């Protein structure tokens, strides 16, 4: 009697993962396309756009992705089958030049990160499905020195040298 219930329990446990609707991606092949704001006059805040195309080895089509963007979990938008996009923006000062790692999670990973965050930790121990590195070369806010300023300085320098040699001659 006890063994039959044990066998039944084991059978249920074995079948359970197949019954769950967990859409995970096994062996993802990712191609990513990244855009970051390059000129400050073209945007009042720095915008990062990450487009990824994901192909799963297990042929998973209904994948739901979430991305960890600067410590903030956002759902990835779907722009086609297997194509996702994550975008975020902030002030120019808050997004300096450098490499930003964007971790992508499926639903399980997302719930795990949320649980960790609720218990106080920052959720960095959960392994993502894949990570995309965003290289931002900084937002150009204009040249350090205006060329008009440089031209004025050169002109003043030339005049000063001439004036000095003239006063030297006259003395």
């Amino acid at each position, binding site marked *: 009697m006890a063994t039959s219930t044990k066998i039944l329990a084991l059978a249920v446990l074995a079948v359970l993962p197949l019954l769950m609707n967990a859409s995970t991606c096994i062996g993802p092949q990712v191609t990513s*396309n990244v*855009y970051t*704001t*390059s*000129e*400050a*006059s*073209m*945007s*009042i*805040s720095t*915008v990062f*756009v990450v*487009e990824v195309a994901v192909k799963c080895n297990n042929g998973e089509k209904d994948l*739901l992705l979430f991305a960890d963007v600067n410590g903030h979990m*956002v*759902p990835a*938008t*779907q*722009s*086609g089958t297997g*194509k996702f*996009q994550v*975008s*975020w*923006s902030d002030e120019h000062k808050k997004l300096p030049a450098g490499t930003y790692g964007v971790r992508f999670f499926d639903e399980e990973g997302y719930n795990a990160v949320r649980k960790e965050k609720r218990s106080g930790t920052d959720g960095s121990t959960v392994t993502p499905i894949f990570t995309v590195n965003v290289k931002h070369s900084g937002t150009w806010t204009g*040249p350090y020195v*205006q*060329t008009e300023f*440089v*031209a004025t300085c*050169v002109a003043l320098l*030339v005049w000063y040298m001439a004036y000095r040699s003239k006063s030297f001659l006259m003395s």
Partner: protein
Amino acid sequence: MKSLFLLVVAFVAVRSDNDDNAARLLASKSILNQFIVEGKELTVEYSIYNVGSSQAYNVELSDSSFPEEDFQRVSGSLNVKWDRLAVGANVSHAVILKPLRPGYANFTAAQVKYYPTEESQAVQVGYTTAPGEAGIVGLKDYERRFSPHIVDWATFAIMTLPSIGFPFLLWYRSKSKYDVKHKKN
């Protein structure tokens, strides 16, 4: 007394119609550019907020106000969807385009479609805010005002060279002759 009671009932009936445990999405579309220049990037940002009392399902954002012949897509997609949008949550989406022609452009609203509850069959259609009309500056005009003009300054320097260099050459030649004479003495 009876009329007051009826009034309260009517008021409650009307109020309860709004708090129907459904999602309500507010969407905004904004252009983040300071200047919109032909051939340079145009940054469009969409934000969707769920201010209702239930999750929104199958949220679809589609923007057809950027025809292919006038705007080249640089990054991002104009037709996207989210599976779910939680209560009180907000998502943002950015698209980068490149205007191909100068002139006036009217930026109209994009469309947002969603299901207010899990069981609802009818899709709810809403619109984002519209940024309105804006001018796309031609590239030449923008460069005339904002580029560093390095080539122009270099040309100017070369052009001033004769009027400064010629007297300098004369002075230098006489100075070197005078110095040689002085050394001889």
